[in-house]
Protein backbone atom coordinates (compact mmCIF):
# COMPACT_ATOMS: atom_id res chain seq x y z
CA UNK A 1 0.00 0.00 0.00
CA UNK A 2 2.84 2.38 0.87
CA UNK A 3 4.24 1.50 -2.52
CA UNK A 4 1.10 2.52 -4.22
CA UNK A 5 0.98 5.84 -2.39
CA UNK A 6 4.58 6.39 -3.44
CA UNK A 7 3.58 5.55 -7.00
CA UNK A 8 0.88 8.22 -6.89
CA UNK A 9 3.36 10.71 -5.43
CA UNK A 10 5.81 10.00 -8.25
CA UNK A 11 3.14 10.38 -10.93
CA UNK A 12 2.28 13.73 -9.36
CA UNK A 13 5.94 14.72 -9.48
CA UNK A 14 5.90 13.91 -13.19
CA UNK A 15 2.72 15.86 -13.89
CA UNK A 16 3.56 18.90 -11.73
CA UNK A 17 6.24 20.31 -14.07
CA UNK A 18 4.00 19.53 -17.03
CA UNK A 19 1.08 21.40 -15.48
CA UNK A 20 3.26 24.24 -14.17
CA UNK A 21 4.50 24.79 -17.72
CA UNK A 22 0.96 25.16 -18.96
CA UNK A 23 0.10 27.41 -16.05
CA UNK A 24 3.01 29.66 -16.94
CA UNK A 25 1.72 29.88 -20.50
CA UNK A 26 -2.02 30.16 -19.85
CA UNK A 27 -2.28 31.61 -16.37
CA UNK A 28 0.63 34.03 -16.52
CA UNK A 29 0.93 34.94 -20.19
CA UNK A 30 -2.43 34.03 -21.72
CA UNK A 31 -1.02 31.58 -24.25
CA UNK A 32 -3.67 28.92 -24.71
CA UNK A 33 -1.33 26.16 -25.76
CA UNK A 34 -3.54 23.19 -26.66
CA UNK A 35 -0.49 21.38 -27.98
CA UNK A 36 1.43 21.34 -24.70
CA UNK A 37 1.72 17.54 -24.79
CA UNK A 38 3.86 17.70 -27.94
CA UNK A 39 6.88 18.85 -25.96
CA UNK A 40 6.22 16.29 -23.23
CA UNK A 41 6.27 13.67 -26.00
CA UNK A 42 9.32 14.99 -27.84
CA UNK A 43 11.49 14.91 -24.75
CA UNK A 44 10.12 11.55 -23.62
CA UNK A 45 11.00 10.03 -26.98
CA UNK A 46 14.36 11.78 -27.17
CA UNK A 47 15.39 10.61 -23.73
CA UNK A 48 14.09 7.09 -24.28
CA UNK A 49 15.97 6.76 -27.56
CA UNK A 50 19.19 8.25 -26.22
CA UNK A 51 19.31 6.12 -23.08
CA UNK A 52 18.37 2.90 -24.86
CA UNK A 53 21.34 3.63 -27.12
CA UNK A 54 23.69 3.91 -24.19
CA UNK A 55 23.78 7.63 -23.36
CA UNK A 56 23.79 8.18 -19.57
CA UNK A 57 20.62 9.53 -18.01
CA UNK A 58 21.81 13.01 -17.06
CA UNK A 59 23.22 13.65 -20.52
CA UNK A 60 20.03 12.42 -22.14
CA UNK A 61 17.98 14.60 -19.80
CA UNK A 62 19.70 17.80 -20.84
CA UNK A 63 19.82 16.85 -24.51
CA UNK A 64 16.08 16.13 -24.45
CA UNK A 65 15.25 19.43 -22.76
CA UNK A 66 17.37 21.21 -25.34
CA UNK A 67 15.68 19.42 -28.20
CA UNK A 68 12.19 20.22 -26.92
CA UNK A 69 13.27 23.84 -26.46
CA UNK A 70 14.56 23.92 -30.02
CA UNK A 71 11.22 22.66 -31.30
CA UNK A 72 9.38 25.29 -29.27
CA UNK A 73 11.67 27.96 -30.64
CA UNK A 74 11.16 26.82 -34.23
CA UNK A 75 7.42 26.27 -34.00
CA UNK A 76 6.91 29.38 -31.91
CA UNK A 77 8.43 31.57 -34.55
CA UNK A 78 5.51 31.30 -36.97
CA UNK A 79 2.69 30.19 -34.67
CA UNK A 80 3.19 32.81 -31.97
CA UNK A 81 2.11 35.43 -34.45
CA UNK A 82 -1.42 34.06 -34.06
CA UNK A 83 -3.69 35.24 -31.26
CA UNK A 84 -6.00 33.52 -28.80
CA UNK A 85 -7.95 30.55 -30.06
CA UNK A 86 -6.10 30.43 -33.38
CA UNK A 87 -2.82 30.01 -31.52
CA UNK A 88 -4.38 27.23 -29.46
CA UNK A 89 -5.70 25.40 -32.49
CA UNK A 90 -2.46 25.70 -34.43
CA UNK A 91 -0.55 24.25 -31.47
CA UNK A 92 -3.11 21.45 -31.24
CA UNK A 93 -2.40 20.75 -34.90
CA UNK A 94 1.32 20.73 -34.22
CA UNK A 95 0.88 18.24 -31.38
CA UNK A 96 -1.19 15.91 -33.54
CA UNK A 97 1.36 16.06 -36.35
CA UNK A 98 4.10 15.19 -33.85
CA UNK A 99 2.02 12.25 -32.69
CA UNK A 100 1.64 11.07 -36.28
CA UNK A 101 5.40 11.27 -36.63
CA UNK A 102 5.89 9.17 -33.50
CA UNK A 103 3.35 6.75 -34.95
CA UNK A 104 4.67 6.49 -38.50
CA UNK A 105 8.43 6.86 -38.36
CA UNK A 106 8.89 3.34 -37.12
CA UNK A 107 12.58 3.23 -38.02
CA UNK A 108 13.15 5.75 -35.26
CA UNK A 109 10.30 5.38 -32.78
CA UNK A 110 9.11 1.80 -33.36
CA UNK A 111 5.74 3.30 -34.29
CA UNK A 112 2.65 2.10 -32.41
CA UNK A 113 4.70 -0.59 -30.70
CA UNK A 114 6.32 2.02 -28.52
CA UNK A 115 9.71 1.81 -26.84
CA UNK A 116 9.89 -0.81 -24.09
CA UNK A 117 12.65 -1.33 -21.57
CA UNK A 118 13.69 2.28 -21.07
CA UNK A 119 16.48 2.18 -18.45
CA UNK A 120 15.95 3.59 -14.99
CA UNK A 121 17.79 6.85 -14.30
CA UNK A 122 21.01 7.09 -12.37
CA UNK A 123 22.40 10.20 -10.76
CA UNK A 124 26.21 10.29 -10.92
CA UNK A 125 26.48 6.58 -10.32
CA UNK A 126 23.59 6.31 -7.84
CA UNK A 127 20.96 4.10 -9.46
CA UNK A 128 17.37 5.30 -9.08
CA UNK A 129 15.49 2.04 -9.11
CA UNK A 130 13.28 1.90 -6.03
CA UNK A 131 10.11 3.87 -5.46
CA UNK A 132 11.46 5.96 -2.56
CA UNK A 133 14.51 6.91 -4.60
CA UNK A 134 12.32 7.94 -7.52
CA UNK A 135 10.18 10.03 -5.19
CA UNK A 136 13.18 11.82 -3.73
CA UNK A 137 15.07 12.22 -7.00
CA UNK A 138 12.12 13.57 -8.96
CA UNK A 139 11.03 15.57 -5.92
CA UNK A 140 14.31 17.49 -5.89
CA UNK A 141 13.86 18.47 -9.52
CA UNK A 142 10.26 19.47 -8.92
CA UNK A 143 11.25 21.70 -6.02
CA UNK A 144 13.93 23.33 -8.16
CA UNK A 145 11.45 23.84 -11.00
CA UNK A 146 8.82 25.27 -8.68
CA UNK A 147 11.40 27.60 -7.18
CA UNK A 148 12.33 28.84 -10.64
CA UNK A 149 8.70 29.39 -11.64
CA UNK A 150 8.04 31.23 -8.40
CA UNK A 151 10.90 33.60 -9.09
CA UNK A 152 9.90 34.18 -12.67
CA UNK A 153 6.36 35.12 -11.73
CA UNK A 154 7.59 37.62 -9.13
CA UNK A 155 10.24 39.09 -11.39
CA UNK A 156 9.91 42.01 -13.80
CA UNK A 157 9.66 39.37 -16.54
CA UNK A 158 6.62 37.90 -14.81
CA UNK A 159 4.99 41.33 -14.67
CA UNK A 160 5.47 41.70 -18.41
CA UNK A 161 3.86 38.30 -18.89
CA UNK A 162 0.87 39.45 -16.86
CA UNK A 163 0.67 42.64 -18.82
CA UNK A 164 0.58 40.64 -22.04
CA UNK A 165 -2.08 38.37 -20.66
CA UNK A 166 -4.25 41.22 -19.50
CA UNK A 167 -3.87 43.48 -22.47
CA UNK A 168 -1.38 42.78 -25.15
CA UNK A 169 -1.95 46.02 -27.01
CA UNK A 170 -1.14 48.27 -24.10
CA UNK A 171 1.86 46.10 -23.28
CA UNK A 172 3.22 46.66 -26.73
CA UNK A 173 2.25 50.32 -26.55
CA UNK A 174 4.55 50.87 -23.58
CA UNK A 175 7.39 49.55 -25.66
CA UNK A 176 7.49 45.84 -24.81
CA UNK A 177 8.37 43.54 -27.67
CA UNK A 178 5.44 41.23 -26.91
CA UNK A 179 6.44 38.62 -29.47
CA UNK A 180 9.76 38.08 -27.76
CA UNK A 181 8.17 37.82 -24.33
CA UNK A 182 5.52 35.43 -25.55
CA UNK A 183 8.24 33.29 -27.01
CA UNK A 184 10.16 33.34 -23.74
CA UNK A 185 7.05 32.19 -21.96
CA UNK A 186 6.45 29.39 -24.46
CA UNK A 187 10.05 28.30 -24.10
CA UNK A 188 9.88 28.20 -20.30
CA UNK A 189 6.60 26.29 -20.38
CA UNK A 190 8.10 23.87 -22.85
CA UNK A 191 11.17 23.16 -20.75
CA UNK A 192 8.93 22.34 -17.81
CA UNK A 193 6.78 20.05 -19.94
CA UNK A 194 9.93 18.42 -21.29
CA UNK A 195 11.16 17.72 -17.76
CA UNK A 196 7.91 15.94 -17.06
CA UNK A 197 8.26 13.99 -20.30
CA UNK A 198 11.70 12.67 -19.42
CA UNK A 199 10.49 11.73 -15.93
CA UNK A 200 7.55 9.90 -17.43
CA UNK A 201 9.64 7.88 -19.87
CA UNK A 202 12.11 6.71 -17.25
CA UNK A 203 9.58 5.95 -14.57
CA UNK A 204 7.03 4.06 -16.66
CA UNK A 205 9.88 2.54 -18.75
CA UNK A 206 7.55 2.22 -21.71
CA UNK A 207 6.27 4.91 -24.06
CA UNK A 208 4.10 4.78 -27.16
CA UNK A 209 2.32 7.40 -29.27
CA UNK A 210 -0.95 6.80 -27.44
CA UNK A 211 0.57 8.36 -24.30
CA UNK A 212 0.77 11.76 -25.97
CA UNK A 213 -2.75 12.61 -27.05
CA UNK A 214 -4.98 15.61 -26.56
CA UNK A 215 -6.22 13.90 -23.41
CA UNK A 216 -2.92 14.58 -21.64
CA UNK A 217 -3.11 18.26 -22.57
CA UNK A 218 -6.67 18.31 -21.28
CA UNK A 219 -5.47 16.78 -18.02
CA UNK A 220 -2.98 19.61 -17.57
CA UNK A 221 -5.58 22.15 -18.65
CA UNK A 222 -7.97 20.76 -16.06
CA UNK A 223 -5.31 21.09 -13.38
CA UNK A 224 -4.58 24.66 -14.38
CA UNK A 225 -8.26 25.53 -14.55
CA UNK A 226 -8.89 24.08 -11.10
CA UNK A 227 -5.79 25.43 -9.39
CA UNK A 228 -4.49 28.22 -11.58
CA UNK A 229 -6.51 30.83 -9.83
CA UNK A 230 -4.31 30.46 -6.79
CA UNK A 231 -1.10 30.53 -8.78
CA UNK A 232 1.63 27.98 -8.49
CA UNK A 233 0.61 26.53 -5.13
CA UNK A 234 -2.89 26.04 -6.50
CA UNK A 235 -1.58 24.21 -9.54
CA UNK A 236 0.53 21.87 -7.42
CA UNK A 237 -2.35 21.13 -5.08
CA UNK A 238 -4.68 20.61 -8.00
CA UNK A 239 -2.22 18.10 -9.47
CA UNK A 240 -2.33 16.02 -6.30
CA UNK A 241 -6.08 16.26 -6.30
CA UNK A 242 -6.59 15.25 -9.93
CA UNK A 243 -3.92 12.54 -10.05
CA UNK A 244 -4.99 11.17 -6.69
CA UNK A 245 -8.53 10.94 -7.98
CA UNK A 246 -7.44 9.32 -11.22
CA UNK A 247 -5.07 6.74 -9.74
CA UNK A 248 -7.17 6.14 -6.67
CA UNK A 249 -10.07 4.88 -8.77
CA UNK A 250 -8.14 1.67 -9.37
CA UNK A 251 -8.59 0.89 -5.71
CA UNK A 252 -12.31 1.10 -5.45
CA UNK A 253 -13.70 -2.39 -4.97
CA UNK A 254 -15.87 -2.19 -8.05
CA UNK A 255 -17.38 -5.23 -9.72
CA UNK A 256 -15.43 -6.45 -12.71
CA UNK A 257 -18.11 -5.75 -15.29
CA UNK A 258 -17.99 -2.16 -14.11
CA UNK A 259 -14.23 -2.00 -14.64
CA UNK A 260 -14.33 -1.06 -18.28
CA UNK A 261 -16.49 1.93 -17.43
CA UNK A 262 -14.04 3.51 -14.99
CA UNK A 263 -11.78 5.23 -17.50
CA UNK A 264 -14.52 6.81 -19.62
CA UNK A 265 -16.56 7.80 -16.57
CA UNK A 266 -13.54 9.49 -15.10
CA UNK A 267 -13.05 11.41 -18.35
CA UNK A 268 -16.74 12.34 -18.31
CA UNK A 269 -16.27 13.70 -14.82
CA UNK A 270 -13.24 15.72 -15.92
CA UNK A 271 -15.23 17.18 -18.80
CA UNK A 272 -18.03 18.11 -16.45
CA UNK A 273 -15.61 19.78 -14.04
CA UNK A 274 -14.13 21.87 -16.87
CA UNK A 275 -17.57 23.07 -17.91
CA UNK A 276 -18.73 23.81 -14.38
CA UNK A 277 -15.62 25.78 -13.48
CA UNK A 278 -15.87 27.86 -16.62
CA UNK A 279 -19.55 28.53 -15.89
CA UNK A 280 -18.83 29.46 -12.29
CA UNK A 281 -15.87 31.70 -12.88
CA UNK A 282 -17.08 33.30 -16.05
CA UNK A 283 -16.66 36.81 -14.72
CA UNK A 284 -13.45 36.84 -12.76
CA UNK A 285 -11.35 34.14 -14.22
CA UNK A 286 -8.24 34.73 -16.29
CA UNK A 287 -9.36 38.24 -16.97
CA UNK A 288 -8.31 41.55 -15.68
CA UNK A 289 -8.93 41.86 -11.98
CA UNK A 290 -7.69 38.35 -11.34
CA UNK A 291 -5.70 38.24 -8.14
CA UNK A 292 -2.57 37.42 -10.07
CA UNK A 293 -2.89 40.43 -12.28
CA UNK A 294 -1.96 42.73 -9.44
CA UNK A 295 0.97 40.58 -8.32
Amino acid at each position, binding site marked *: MTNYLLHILIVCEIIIPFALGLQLEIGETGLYNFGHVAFFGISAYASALLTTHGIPFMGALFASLALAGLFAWGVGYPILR*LRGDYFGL*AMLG*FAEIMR*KIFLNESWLTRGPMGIPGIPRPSFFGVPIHTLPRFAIFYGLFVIAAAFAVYHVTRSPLGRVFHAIRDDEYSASAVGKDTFRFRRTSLLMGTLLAALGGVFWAHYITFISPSDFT*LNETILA*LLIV*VIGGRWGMAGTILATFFVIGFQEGLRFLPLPESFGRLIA*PMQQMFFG*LVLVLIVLKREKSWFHKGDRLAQG
Partner: protein
Amino acid sequence: MSLFLQSLLDGLIAGSIYALFAVGLTLIYGTLHFINFAHGELIMAGAYFAYLFMMPPLHLSPFISGGCAIVGVVCLALLMDRSVFSPLRNANSLLLLIASLGISLFFQNLAQVIWGAEIRTFPFPLERGISLGPVVITPVQAWILIIAAGAIFLLYLFLKFTRAGKAIRSVSDNPRLAKTFGVETERVIRFVWIVAASLAAVGGVLYAADTNLEPHMGTINLVRAFAAVLLGGVGNVWGALIGGIVIGLSENLGVLILPIGYKDAIAFCVIILLLLFRPEGILGVRWGVR
Protein backbone atom coordinates in the same frame (compact mmCIF):
# COMPACT_ATOMS: atom_id res chain seq x y z
CA MET B 1 -4.75 6.13 -63.55
CA SER B 2 -7.64 4.12 -62.15
CA LEU B 3 -6.12 4.58 -58.70
CA PHE B 4 -6.14 8.34 -59.24
CA LEU B 5 -9.75 8.38 -60.44
CA GLN B 6 -10.85 6.14 -57.60
CA SER B 7 -9.13 8.41 -55.09
CA LEU B 8 -10.77 11.40 -56.71
CA LEU B 9 -14.19 9.81 -56.31
CA ASP B 10 -13.51 8.75 -52.72
CA GLY B 11 -12.25 12.25 -52.00
CA LEU B 12 -15.40 13.76 -53.43
CA ILE B 13 -17.61 11.50 -51.33
CA ALA B 14 -15.63 12.19 -48.15
CA GLY B 15 -15.47 15.89 -49.04
CA SER B 16 -19.23 16.21 -49.47
CA ILE B 17 -19.64 14.83 -45.95
CA TYR B 18 -16.98 17.14 -44.51
CA ALA B 19 -18.75 20.04 -46.21
CA LEU B 20 -21.86 19.36 -44.12
CA PHE B 21 -19.77 19.41 -40.94
CA ALA B 22 -17.97 22.57 -41.99
CA VAL B 23 -21.11 24.58 -42.75
CA GLY B 24 -22.46 23.97 -39.27
CA LEU B 25 -19.19 24.86 -37.63
CA THR B 26 -18.79 28.04 -39.63
CA LEU B 27 -22.34 29.15 -38.84
CA ILE B 28 -21.66 28.75 -35.12
CA TYR B 29 -18.37 30.54 -35.44
CA GLY B 30 -19.98 33.30 -37.46
CA THR B 31 -22.75 34.01 -34.96
CA LEU B 32 -21.26 33.05 -31.60
CA HIS B 33 -17.58 33.74 -32.36
CA PHE B 34 -15.97 30.69 -30.83
CA ILE B 35 -14.70 27.34 -32.06
CA ASN B 36 -17.22 24.79 -30.91
CA PHE B 37 -15.12 21.79 -30.00
CA ALA B 38 -18.26 19.83 -29.22
CA HIS B 39 -19.34 19.99 -32.87
CA GLY B 40 -17.52 16.69 -33.35
CA GLU B 41 -19.72 15.12 -30.70
CA LEU B 42 -22.86 16.30 -32.50
CA ILE B 43 -21.53 14.37 -35.51
CA MET B 44 -20.80 11.32 -33.37
CA ALA B 45 -24.20 11.55 -31.68
CA GLY B 46 -25.93 11.63 -35.07
CA ALA B 47 -24.24 8.40 -36.09
CA TYR B 48 -24.96 6.60 -32.81
CA PHE B 49 -28.58 7.77 -32.63
CA ALA B 50 -29.15 6.38 -36.13
CA TYR B 51 -27.42 3.17 -35.07
CA LEU B 52 -29.69 2.95 -32.04
CA PHE B 53 -32.82 3.21 -34.18
CA MET B 54 -31.57 0.84 -36.86
CA MET B 55 -30.62 -2.00 -34.52
CA PRO B 56 -32.99 -4.24 -32.61
CA PRO B 57 -35.33 -3.80 -30.87
CA LEU B 58 -36.45 -0.83 -32.98
CA HIS B 59 -35.26 -2.02 -36.39
CA LEU B 60 -36.35 1.10 -38.26
CA SER B 61 -35.37 1.72 -41.86
CA PRO B 62 -32.19 3.73 -42.49
CA PHE B 63 -34.10 6.81 -43.62
CA ILE B 64 -36.46 6.91 -40.67
CA SER B 65 -33.53 6.26 -38.34
CA GLY B 66 -31.65 9.14 -39.92
CA GLY B 67 -34.65 11.42 -39.39
CA CYS B 68 -34.88 10.41 -35.74
CA ALA B 69 -31.16 11.01 -35.38
CA ILE B 70 -31.55 14.57 -36.68
CA VAL B 71 -34.26 15.29 -34.13
CA GLY B 72 -32.13 13.80 -31.37
CA VAL B 73 -29.04 15.79 -32.27
CA VAL B 74 -30.97 19.05 -32.57
CA CYS B 75 -32.35 18.50 -29.06
CA LEU B 76 -28.83 17.74 -27.82
CA ALA B 77 -27.43 20.90 -29.41
CA LEU B 78 -30.18 23.08 -27.96
CA LEU B 79 -29.56 21.51 -24.57
CA MET B 80 -25.86 22.31 -24.83
CA ASP B 81 -26.63 25.88 -25.76
CA ARG B 82 -29.22 26.41 -23.06
CA SER B 83 -27.14 24.92 -20.26
CA VAL B 84 -23.61 26.04 -21.13
CA PHE B 85 -23.17 28.42 -24.01
CA SER B 86 -26.09 30.71 -23.32
CA PRO B 87 -24.82 31.75 -19.85
CA LEU B 88 -21.48 32.48 -21.50
CA ARG B 89 -22.82 34.69 -24.29
CA ASN B 90 -20.54 37.60 -23.50
CA ALA B 91 -17.54 35.60 -22.31
CA ASN B 92 -14.11 35.51 -23.83
CA SER B 93 -13.96 33.13 -26.81
CA LEU B 94 -11.25 31.11 -25.07
CA LEU B 95 -13.52 30.39 -22.14
CA LEU B 96 -16.14 29.18 -24.58
CA LEU B 97 -13.54 27.03 -26.27
CA ILE B 98 -12.59 25.43 -22.95
CA ALA B 99 -16.22 24.89 -22.04
CA SER B 100 -16.87 23.23 -25.40
CA LEU B 101 -13.77 21.10 -24.90
CA GLY B 102 -15.27 19.94 -21.61
CA ILE B 103 -18.58 19.13 -23.28
CA SER B 104 -16.76 17.25 -26.00
CA LEU B 105 -14.86 15.17 -23.45
CA PHE B 106 -18.08 14.46 -21.60
CA PHE B 107 -20.11 13.20 -24.54
CA GLN B 108 -17.28 11.30 -26.18
CA ASN B 109 -16.87 9.25 -23.05
CA LEU B 110 -20.58 8.98 -22.42
CA ALA B 111 -20.81 7.27 -25.80
CA GLN B 112 -18.01 4.95 -24.75
CA VAL B 113 -19.83 4.11 -21.54
CA ILE B 114 -23.02 3.30 -23.43
CA TRP B 115 -21.70 1.62 -26.56
CA GLY B 116 -18.16 0.61 -25.65
CA ALA B 117 -14.96 1.59 -27.40
CA GLU B 118 -15.16 -0.94 -30.18
CA ILE B 119 -15.99 -0.23 -33.79
CA ARG B 120 -19.61 -0.68 -34.78
CA THR B 121 -21.21 -0.91 -38.18
CA PHE B 122 -24.64 -0.07 -39.55
CA PRO B 123 -26.52 -3.27 -40.38
CA PHE B 124 -26.41 -2.75 -44.12
CA PRO B 125 -26.20 -5.78 -46.37
CA LEU B 126 -22.75 -6.35 -47.78
CA GLU B 127 -22.73 -5.56 -51.49
CA ARG B 128 -20.16 -5.49 -54.20
CA GLY B 129 -19.48 -2.02 -55.54
CA ILE B 130 -20.72 -1.06 -59.00
CA SER B 131 -17.95 -0.68 -61.55
CA LEU B 132 -18.20 2.51 -63.56
CA GLY B 133 -15.33 2.14 -65.96
CA PRO B 134 -12.15 2.34 -63.92
CA VAL B 135 -13.81 3.25 -60.63
CA VAL B 136 -15.98 1.39 -58.15
CA ILE B 137 -18.81 2.95 -56.17
CA THR B 138 -20.90 1.09 -53.63
CA PRO B 139 -24.65 1.68 -53.54
CA VAL B 140 -24.24 3.22 -50.09
CA GLN B 141 -21.70 5.70 -51.45
CA ALA B 142 -24.05 6.65 -54.26
CA TRP B 143 -26.75 7.37 -51.67
CA ILE B 144 -24.27 9.44 -49.71
CA LEU B 145 -23.58 11.68 -52.68
CA ILE B 146 -27.29 12.13 -53.39
CA ILE B 147 -28.21 12.88 -49.79
CA ALA B 148 -25.29 15.26 -49.24
CA ALA B 149 -26.14 17.17 -52.40
CA GLY B 150 -29.81 17.28 -51.36
CA ALA B 151 -28.91 18.62 -47.92
CA ILE B 152 -26.77 21.34 -49.44
CA PHE B 153 -29.55 22.33 -51.83
CA LEU B 154 -32.06 22.56 -48.98
CA LEU B 155 -29.60 24.70 -47.05
CA TYR B 156 -29.27 27.01 -50.02
CA LEU B 157 -33.02 27.42 -50.27
CA PHE B 158 -33.28 28.03 -46.55
CA LEU B 159 -30.60 30.69 -46.38
CA LYS B 160 -31.63 32.41 -49.56
CA PHE B 161 -35.39 32.48 -49.36
CA THR B 162 -36.64 32.16 -45.78
CA ARG B 163 -36.86 34.94 -43.25
CA ALA B 164 -34.93 32.89 -40.71
CA GLY B 165 -32.21 32.24 -43.21
CA LYS B 166 -31.84 35.89 -44.02
CA ALA B 167 -31.80 36.76 -40.33
CA ILE B 168 -29.01 34.26 -39.74
CA ARG B 169 -26.95 35.89 -42.43
CA SER B 170 -27.48 39.37 -41.11
CA VAL B 171 -26.57 38.44 -37.52
CA SER B 172 -23.48 36.64 -38.66
CA ASP B 173 -22.52 39.68 -40.70
CA ASN B 174 -22.86 42.13 -37.88
CA PRO B 175 -24.69 41.18 -34.69
CA ARG B 176 -24.94 44.73 -33.29
CA LEU B 177 -26.26 46.20 -36.48
CA ALA B 178 -28.74 43.37 -36.86
CA LYS B 179 -29.99 44.05 -33.32
CA THR B 180 -30.63 47.71 -34.03
CA PHE B 181 -32.62 46.66 -37.05
CA GLY B 182 -34.81 44.56 -34.81
CA VAL B 183 -33.46 41.10 -35.49
CA GLU B 184 -33.97 39.03 -32.39
CA THR B 185 -30.48 37.66 -31.79
CA GLU B 186 -31.40 34.85 -29.40
CA ARG B 187 -33.97 33.51 -31.84
CA VAL B 188 -31.44 33.58 -34.62
CA ILE B 189 -28.91 31.77 -32.46
CA ARG B 190 -31.45 29.04 -31.88
CA PHE B 191 -31.97 28.72 -35.62
CA VAL B 192 -28.25 28.51 -36.15
CA TRP B 193 -27.99 25.67 -33.66
CA ILE B 194 -30.85 23.82 -35.33
CA VAL B 195 -29.27 24.14 -38.77
CA ALA B 196 -25.76 23.29 -37.58
CA ALA B 197 -26.97 20.29 -35.58
CA SER B 198 -29.10 18.93 -38.42
CA LEU B 199 -26.19 19.14 -40.83
CA ALA B 200 -23.87 17.52 -38.27
CA ALA B 201 -26.39 14.72 -37.77
CA VAL B 202 -26.86 14.10 -41.49
CA GLY B 203 -23.12 14.20 -42.03
CA GLY B 204 -22.48 11.93 -39.06
CA VAL B 205 -24.91 9.30 -40.33
CA LEU B 206 -23.42 9.48 -43.83
CA TYR B 207 -19.89 9.27 -42.47
CA ALA B 208 -20.75 6.23 -40.39
CA ALA B 209 -22.46 4.62 -43.38
CA ASP B 210 -19.35 5.15 -45.48
CA THR B 211 -16.93 3.91 -42.80
CA ASN B 212 -17.89 2.75 -39.30
CA LEU B 213 -18.78 4.13 -35.89
CA GLU B 214 -16.58 4.66 -32.86
CA PRO B 215 -16.93 7.01 -29.90
CA HIS B 216 -13.94 9.16 -30.85
CA MET B 217 -14.99 9.72 -34.45
CA GLY B 218 -15.98 13.30 -33.67
CA THR B 219 -12.56 14.75 -32.98
CA ILE B 220 -10.90 14.05 -36.30
CA ASN B 221 -14.00 15.23 -38.14
CA LEU B 222 -14.05 18.43 -36.12
CA VAL B 223 -10.49 19.04 -37.26
CA ARG B 224 -11.40 18.43 -40.88
CA ALA B 225 -14.38 20.74 -40.56
CA PHE B 226 -12.27 23.42 -38.95
CA ALA B 227 -9.70 23.19 -41.73
CA ALA B 228 -12.52 23.59 -44.24
CA VAL B 229 -13.88 26.60 -42.35
CA LEU B 230 -10.50 28.29 -42.45
CA LEU B 231 -10.12 27.49 -46.14
CA GLY B 232 -13.40 29.14 -46.92
CA GLY B 233 -12.91 32.07 -44.58
CA VAL B 234 -14.63 32.11 -41.20
CA GLY B 235 -18.38 32.65 -41.42
CA ASN B 236 -18.53 32.00 -45.14
CA VAL B 237 -21.07 29.24 -45.79
CA TRP B 238 -20.24 28.52 -49.40
CA GLY B 239 -16.55 28.83 -48.65
CA ALA B 240 -16.93 26.14 -45.98
CA LEU B 241 -18.74 23.88 -48.46
CA ILE B 242 -15.98 24.14 -51.01
CA GLY B 243 -13.38 23.93 -48.23
CA GLY B 244 -14.87 20.62 -47.09
CA ILE B 245 -14.63 19.15 -50.55
CA VAL B 246 -11.07 20.41 -50.91
CA ILE B 247 -10.12 18.73 -47.60
CA GLY B 248 -11.73 15.46 -48.69
CA LEU B 249 -9.87 15.54 -51.98
CA SER B 250 -6.54 16.49 -50.47
CA GLU B 251 -6.78 13.66 -47.92
CA ASN B 252 -7.54 11.03 -50.51
CA LEU B 253 -5.15 12.30 -53.15
CA GLY B 254 -2.50 13.11 -50.54
CA VAL B 255 -2.01 9.47 -49.62
CA LEU B 256 -0.97 8.75 -53.18
CA ILE B 257 2.19 10.67 -52.39
CA LEU B 258 2.46 10.56 -48.59
CA PRO B 259 2.67 7.41 -46.46
CA ILE B 260 -0.87 6.26 -45.62
CA GLY B 261 -0.32 6.80 -41.91
CA TYR B 262 -0.23 10.54 -42.40
CA LYS B 263 -3.73 10.73 -43.88
CA ASP B 264 -5.25 12.13 -40.70
CA ALA B 265 -2.47 14.71 -40.40
CA ILE B 266 -3.31 16.37 -43.72
CA ALA B 267 -6.17 18.44 -42.31
CA PHE B 268 -3.91 19.63 -39.49
CA CYS B 269 -1.24 20.67 -41.97
CA VAL B 270 -3.84 22.62 -43.93
CA ILE B 271 -4.91 24.38 -40.72
CA ILE B 272 -1.39 25.41 -39.78
CA LEU B 273 -0.46 26.55 -43.27
CA LEU B 274 -3.64 28.57 -43.63
CA LEU B 275 -3.34 30.20 -40.24
CA LEU B 276 0.18 31.23 -41.08
CA PHE B 277 -0.23 32.44 -44.60
CA ARG B 278 -3.86 33.26 -45.26
CA PRO B 279 -5.81 33.58 -42.03
CA GLU B 280 -8.62 35.32 -43.92
CA GLY B 281 -9.22 32.19 -46.01
CA ILE B 282 -8.62 31.50 -49.66
CA LEU B 283 -12.10 31.93 -50.97
CA GLY B 284 -12.24 35.69 -50.62
CA VAL B 285 -15.67 37.21 -50.19
CA ARG B 286 -17.35 36.94 -46.81
CA TRP B 287 -20.81 35.52 -47.07
CA GLY B 288 -21.24 34.17 -50.52
CA VAL B 289 -25.00 34.48 -50.48
CA ARG B 290 -26.04 38.08 -50.71
